[in-house]
C-alpha cells in the first residue's frame, strides 16, 4: 500500500482536519513525503466523489462543493426525522440510570446501541463524557436541555424513579458477571 493510499485512509477515518506534521508522525514518514503523497492523492481524487481540502498546514477530506445543497437538505431531513423506538428506549435507560456506559445500555437492551447513541448525541439529547472512574470509558448522560424539555429539574423527578432506577442498576450489575460466564 503506497503513501497516497495510506494518507487517504487516515483522512477518511479521522473525518476532521489533520495537520500534515501529524500525518507524518502517524505514518512514520517525512513531511516531504506527505506533501508528495498529498499531491498524488489530489490527482487521483479528480473526478471522484470525495475532495481533498487544504487549509494552511491542515488537510481533510470533504464532499464536492456541487453537492452542498444536497447535504444541507439531507442534514435537515435527518435532524427532523422522528426518533425510532430504539432511540427512545435507549434514551429512557440513560435517563433512569442518570448516565450509563454503552455496555450497560447494550446489555439491558440485548442489542448493540452504537448507531442509536450517535443519533441521540447529534440531536443534543445526550452527551458523551469521560468516566471519572475509568478514563478509557465513556458515559452517556442526559443533557440539561432534555430535562427541561421534559419539564423536570432533575432525573429524580421522573415518574417511578426509584423503582426503575433500581431495576436498571441491578441489570447493569449482572452485566459483568454474565459476560464472563458467556465467554468462558
Amino acid at each position, binding site marked *: 500500500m503506497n503513501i497516497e493510499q495510506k494518507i487517504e485512509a487516515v483522512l477518511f477515518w479521522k*473525518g476532521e482536519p489533520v495537520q500534515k506534521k501529524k500525518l507524518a508522525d502517524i505514518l512514520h514518514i517525512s513531511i516531504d513525503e506527505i506533501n508528495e503523497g498529498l499531491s498524488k492523492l489530489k490527482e487521483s481524487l479528480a473526478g471522484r466523489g470525495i475532495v481533498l481540502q487544504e487549509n494552511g498546514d491542515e488537510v481533510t477530506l470533504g464532499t464536492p462543493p456541487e453537492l452542498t445543497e444536497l447535504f444541507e437538505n439531507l442534514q435537515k431531513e435527518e435532524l427532523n426525522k*422522528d426518533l425510532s423506538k430504539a432511540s*427512545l428506549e435507549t434514551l429512557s435507560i440513560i435517563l433512569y440510570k442518570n448516565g450509563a456506559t454503552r455496555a450497560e445500555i447494550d446489555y439491558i437492551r*440485548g442489542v448493540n446501541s452504537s448507531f442509536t447513541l450517535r443519533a441521540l448525541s447529534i440531536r443534543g439529547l445526550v452527551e458523551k463524557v469521560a468516566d471519572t472512574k475509568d478514563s478509557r470509558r465513556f458515559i452517556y448522560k442526559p443533557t440539561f436541555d432534555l430535562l427541561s424539555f421534559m419539564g423536570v429539574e432533575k432525573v429524580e423527578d421522573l415518574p417511578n424513579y426509584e423503582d426503575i432506577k433500581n*431495576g436498571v442498576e441491578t441489570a447493569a450489575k449482572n452485566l459483568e458477571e454474565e459476560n464472563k460466564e458467556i465467554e468462558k
Partner: protein
Amino acid sequence: MDTDIYQIQTEAFKGPFGLLLELVEKKKLFINDVSLACVTEDYLKYVNSLTNLKSEEISSFILVASTLILIKSKSLLPNLDLTTEEKSDISSLEERLRLYELFTRLGVNVKENFGQKIIFAPQERKNNALIFLPDNQISKDSMMTFAQNALGRIPKKVFLPEVEVKKVISIEEMIDKLTDRIQNSMKMNFREFSGHTGGAVTREEKVLVIVGFLAMLELVRNGILNAIQDTNSSDILIEKQEVLTDSV
C-alpha cells in the same frame, strides 16, 4: 464390542454433536448409520460421566444418545422394526451431524481470521454546531414506559424449554418400548440373525449389550429428572418475546 474408553476432556465443553463427531473422526469413519453404531458405547460412557454439566446440556446429550441406541439396536437386531418417527430421528441425526461437521470446518476460517485483518468504520464525525432537537414522543410518561419495557425484556434465567423437557421425559417411554420389543424379538425365531457386527456373538449377548445401553441411558435420565425438580439448578436463558428493537 468396542472397548477403548473415550478419554474425557474437561478443559473445553463439547456439545453433543462435537463429541459425536470427534468419536467418529477418531475412528476415521464417514458419517453414516454404521459408524454411528460403532461409537454408541463410547458416547454413552462419556454422557454417563457428565455429572457436573448443566442439566440443559446433558439433556441434549441424552437426546442424541437415545437415537444412537436405536441405531445400535437396529444394527444388532436387523429385524427390529423401527417406527417412522424413529427412522426420521436416525436420518435427522446423520444430517445434523453432517451439517455440524460442515460448519465446524468453516468455523476454522472464522477462528483464524477473526480480528486479524480489520476494516475500520470512520470515527464519529464531530458536530460542532450546538443544537437541541427534541421529539414530541419524549415525555415523562413515555420515558417511564420505555424503560419499564426494556427491563421487562431482559431474559430471565429459567429451566429447560418445555419442548426439551417433554422430549427428555419421553425417553422413558422410548426405553420401555424398546426394551419390550427387544425382549419380544428374543422370543421369536430368526433365520438371518447372525448380524454383521461379529460372527461369534450370540443373539443373547447382543440383546444384553442393548439392554446395558438402555440401562445406562436410564441412569443419566434419572439424573436429569432430578435436576428438573431442583429449580435451583436453573441455568437456561429463554427469550421472552421476539421483538424488533433496533430499527434505528
